[in-house]
């Protein structure tokens, strides 16, 4: 029992962080599923979402600021795709990836310019940042909300993909990009929708993430971004339930490692896991079998 009491905070933090990674990971996995692109800018979109709240709450009440942040983040995701990835659709894959790295570089420098390089304090959001007791462990309410919200959102997303027309178009595009175009699917609107959904979830994820880790710096998105990508690969890239499960596993493992006093290695663990997964089961836990992946 005492072991449980000692480790419960870490476990809770792990579940919470896992949920936040999951929301980011979905953006990666959906984009990769359709475009075969590691969207390196996704973590930075997450960071921009954080900064938007920081700056908008200084001039408007928080219940206006949050919806506005979500709209702007979605818009950013949409614009990034239209400006930086769409012109390169017929280019080699490496060019798009380099473009993604360029966007990431641009967003980070833009954030550096706006913030002046100082860490910005994320405002406390009423209700979700209240302190509560869970099985005797003290934590913020967000810790409990995150996994629930994540699962609800993912369920909605899965329903969207399974039962709507645009969802069917997405599935078709990720199966075979060119054939789906021939079948009359407007590939550009499908891709835009993917980016919109990804950015929306990243915006929610940033809301939850920064309630726990309140310092927003220009490079804060890089690490969660990479870890969410690892989660997406772990779960089988292209698979949404896979990404969610992968994210929870990574979040929990990472926090348990921190709890054991090996904080230095919590990041290293994630990447070691990535390499092991790629070598042992390159398609991930739930990935479809593909011959040209690795």
């Amino acid at each position, binding site marked *: 029992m005492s072991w449980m009491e000692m480790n419960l905070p870490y476990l809770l933090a792990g579940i919470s962080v896992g949920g936040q990674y999951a929301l980011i990971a979905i953006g990666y996995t959906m984009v990769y599923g359709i475009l075969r692109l590691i969207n390196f800018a996704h973590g930075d979109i997450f960071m921009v979402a954080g900064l938007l709240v920081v700056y908008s709450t200084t001039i408007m009440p928080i219940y206006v600021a949050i919806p506005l942040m979500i709209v702007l983040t979605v818009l950013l995701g949409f614009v990034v795709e239209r400006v*930086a990835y769409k012109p390169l659709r017929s280019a080699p894959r490496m060019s798009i990836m380099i473009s993604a790295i*360029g966007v*990431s*570089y641009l967003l980070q420098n833009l954030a550096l310019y706006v913030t002046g390089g100082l860490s910005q304090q994320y405002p406390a959001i009423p209700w979700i940042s209240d302190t509560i007791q869970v099985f005797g462990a003290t934590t913020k309410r967000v810790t409990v909300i995150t996994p629930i919200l994540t699962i609800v959102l993912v369920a909605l997303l899965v329903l969207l993909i399974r039962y709507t027309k645009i969802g069917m178009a997405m599935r078709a595009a990720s199966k075979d990009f060119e054939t789906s175009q021939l079948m009359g699917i407007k590939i550009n609107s499908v891709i835009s929708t993917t980016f919109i959904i990804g950015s929306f979830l990243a915006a929610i994820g940033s809301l939850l993430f920064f309630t726990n880790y309140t310092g927003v710096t220009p490079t804060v998105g890089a690490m969660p971004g990479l870890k969410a990508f*690892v989660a997406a*690969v772990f779960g089988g890239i292209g698979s949404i339930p896979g990404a969610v499960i992968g994210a929870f596993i990574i979040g929990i493992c990472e926090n348990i490692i921190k709890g054991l006093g090996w904080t*230095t290695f919590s*990041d290293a663990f994630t990447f070691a896991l990535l*390499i092991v997964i790629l*070598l042992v089961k390159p398609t991930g836990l739930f990935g479809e079998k593909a011959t040209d992946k690795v």
Partner: protein
Amino acid sequence: MSSKTKTMWNVGLIAALLLLLFLLEQVIPSGSMFFTVLKKGAIYALVAVSMNLLNGFTGLFSLGQAGFMLLGAYTYAILTIPVESRNSVYQYFDGGVIQFALPVPVALIAGGIVAAVFAYLIGLPVLRLKSDYLAIATLGFAEIIRAVFQWDKLGPVTNGSNLLRSYPTFKSVLYPFVVAGICIALIVLLINSTYGRAFKAIRDDEIAAEAMGINLAHHKRLAFVISSFFAGISGGLLAMYQTSIQASMFKSAMTYEILLIVVIGGIGSVTGSCISSFLFIACSEWWLRFLDNENLYIGSFHVPLLRPGFRKVVFAVIIMLMVLFYRRGIMGDKEFSLEKISNFFRRKRGKKEGKGGASHE
């Protein structure tokens, strides 16, 4: 031009360039931005060429360069800190465990070798992956290396997350030029050898290359190890340039910068990488500096938006435009050579020949 005259021209040019640098150093004050750009540019040119060897010539998309530079930089610094200053540098670790100092060239090469050994070990599992998976796995390794070097338990060797300093550095701008020049020349020789042709064959078509009897695993590993070796040496040079190093410097952002240099110069062009690294460093450190000045007036018009950091935004926008609209980079996959320029002029004017800018190679 016969190959003999070509070599002579190149040797002459390099000698002229070094002489020019030497003379400039006597004239211009040493704190000038100009030398900062030249020193850092030469170091980045080396690491960009080493990355180009992998990405451009072998077709292995690796993003581990910052990690290998870290290994080189740390090895160099750890091996050369004079014994008498070890107590002050390793103040939290009782002077560290290493109580000797090696001469500078030996330590630089040792840095390269350590990076190469790590690359060999990492390459065993990782080189089986392809394209973006290889990229993300090497990026991951760089992050792991960075985390491990900041670990307290390794403190007696790596000084934990504290600075390493007071190791020997270089004063003259000629030093990085000569070292980077020699290394780049070695890479060029490698690229022009049978190994280099094998690398290019692997880049163009792996299956065809294998069918022609090229041992894929062996050649990929070779390219990876050699590229890392030179990345390690450039890491050592960077340590000398910075005068103090810390593991947290070598973030993935550094790899991205090097990658952007390679892309801007042209993937698969050695001279392109060199030219673009000088341009890149000059733009990011020097030419765009005025954008950071808050009180810039054109006539009586106060230019808005300018404040520290704006230079980087403009710079990133320029890079984005290059990536989107000028995808082949400055040189494409061609090389800068006197011969081509002289041919170009001969064809155009009929008489003008043998004229070209100074390149260092």
